[in-house]
């Protein structure tokens, strides 16, 4: 359904503590964003890319498919950096903009790979119940966890509704397509809230009185993994500073 979510749930890093994976991927992400793009982003992005298709064994096809939409954004929003506007409707190509545009695009692509390293290895269902340790109120993490569970049900429904509408020629013209879309939105609205109502009864039977607390399986944070992560991050920062100053 969501290729990144499936990768996260089925990959070899599935049983690692989410904090380890967050430290690694978000640490690299921070390096990619905060260090000077050349060479900091290059190193962070390259490290994330190697980890992603190497030890984390995420298929390159999944990575590329997930990267399509954000890359489209990067491509379109980099165009304005390459032109100068002197007055409305008077645009010239800006040769000096090439370097900053390349830096911005490079930083963004590097950061994107770091994000994918996180997404494709760390299931949200492992992250959400632990977020309260970072000070997020349990009510918010519980609502988020319910949203996560229910959105899969709704995505399934909306796909089935769409298929049924297509079978009855619901997308034949613009007019019918709009009517069909409204039908989809209406159907999932009704479904979402009837699901919530029924789930409430289902949970009440199991003793629900307001708290959705569950037992979160204890996972040990691996000291070698953390040490390697710290080592990698320090190395990237150090090399970036040294190489950057010599450039």
């Amino acid at each position, binding site marked *: 359904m969501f290729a990144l979510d499936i990768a996260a749930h089925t990959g070899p890093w599935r049983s690692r503590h989410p904090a380890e994976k967050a430290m690694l991927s978000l640490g690299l992400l921070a390096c990619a964003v905060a260090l000077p793009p050349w060479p900091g982003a290059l190193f962070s992005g390259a490290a994330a890319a190697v980890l992603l298709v190497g030890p984390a064994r995420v298929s390159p096809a999944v990575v590329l498919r997930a990267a399509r939409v954000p890359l489209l954004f990067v491509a379109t929003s980099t165009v304005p950096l390459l032109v100068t506007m002197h007055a409305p409707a008077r645009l010239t190509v800006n040769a000096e903009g090439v370097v900053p545009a390349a830096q911005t695009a490079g930083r963004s692509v590097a950061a994107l790979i770091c994000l994918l390293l996180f997404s494709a290895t760390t299931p949200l269902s492992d992250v959400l119940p632990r977020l309260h340790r970072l000070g997020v109120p349990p009510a918010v993490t519980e609502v988020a966890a319910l*949203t996560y569970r229910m959105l899969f049900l709704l995505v399934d429904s909306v796909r089935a509704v769409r298929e049924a509408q297509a079978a009855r020629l619901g997308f034949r013209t613009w007019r019918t397509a709009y009517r069909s879309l409204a039908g989809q939105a209406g159907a999932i609205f009704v479904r979402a809230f009837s699901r919530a109502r029924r789930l409430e009864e289902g949970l009440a039977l199991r003793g629900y009185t307001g708290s959705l607390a569950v037992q979160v399986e204890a996972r040990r944070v691996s000291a070698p993994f953390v040490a390697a992560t710290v080592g990698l991050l320090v190395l990237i920062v150090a090399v970036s500073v040294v190489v950057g100053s010599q450039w």
Partner: protein
Amino acid sequence: MHIAEGYLPPVQAAAWFAVSAPFVVHGSRALVQQVRRDPETKLLLGAAGAFTFVLSALKIPSVTGSCSHPTGTGLGAVLFRPPVMSVLGGIVLLFQAVLLAHGGLSTLGANIFSMAIVGPWVAYAVYALIRRAGGGLDVAVFAAAALGDLATYCVTSVQLALAFPDPATGFLGALMKFGGIFALTQIPLAISEGLLSVLVVRLLTRV
């Protein structure tokens, strides 16, 4: 379009977190209180979040032949009110970043500000104004959704213009460039989202 991961310079990315934080914290407090008063709303809020996510994933046919997505924030704000939408919108944007790589974690603050704060508040204000002025439900919903959508992309353009001012004309020049790409082209989609929202509300009020 969400601002992609890493696209904003670090200081500005951090600044947008700082700007969004009070709204999200306020929304979270409202949510916590609401849930404490009435524990059942927890499941309804989960449903509302899932609905918003799926709504923003519906494919709208667009002129260019490719497909676009509604923001869903206008309809969400009218149905669930802006403070709650700031939290639900934040959750949805986090999920979009992690599940789909749409948007990002470093740009989450900026995207929350445009899509989960400004969009919903503009939509809600427009809706409330038109209703109070005696406007019909259809008109109010249409304007709320269309202007909420448009406001979101205007804010995105401002965010990008602040980050990348034009070498000759500075912020204003950059705003026109980014606005030309992200806000102007959004007008037909904003109208689409308005029409779609009207159809949805009609369907829901009849049910």
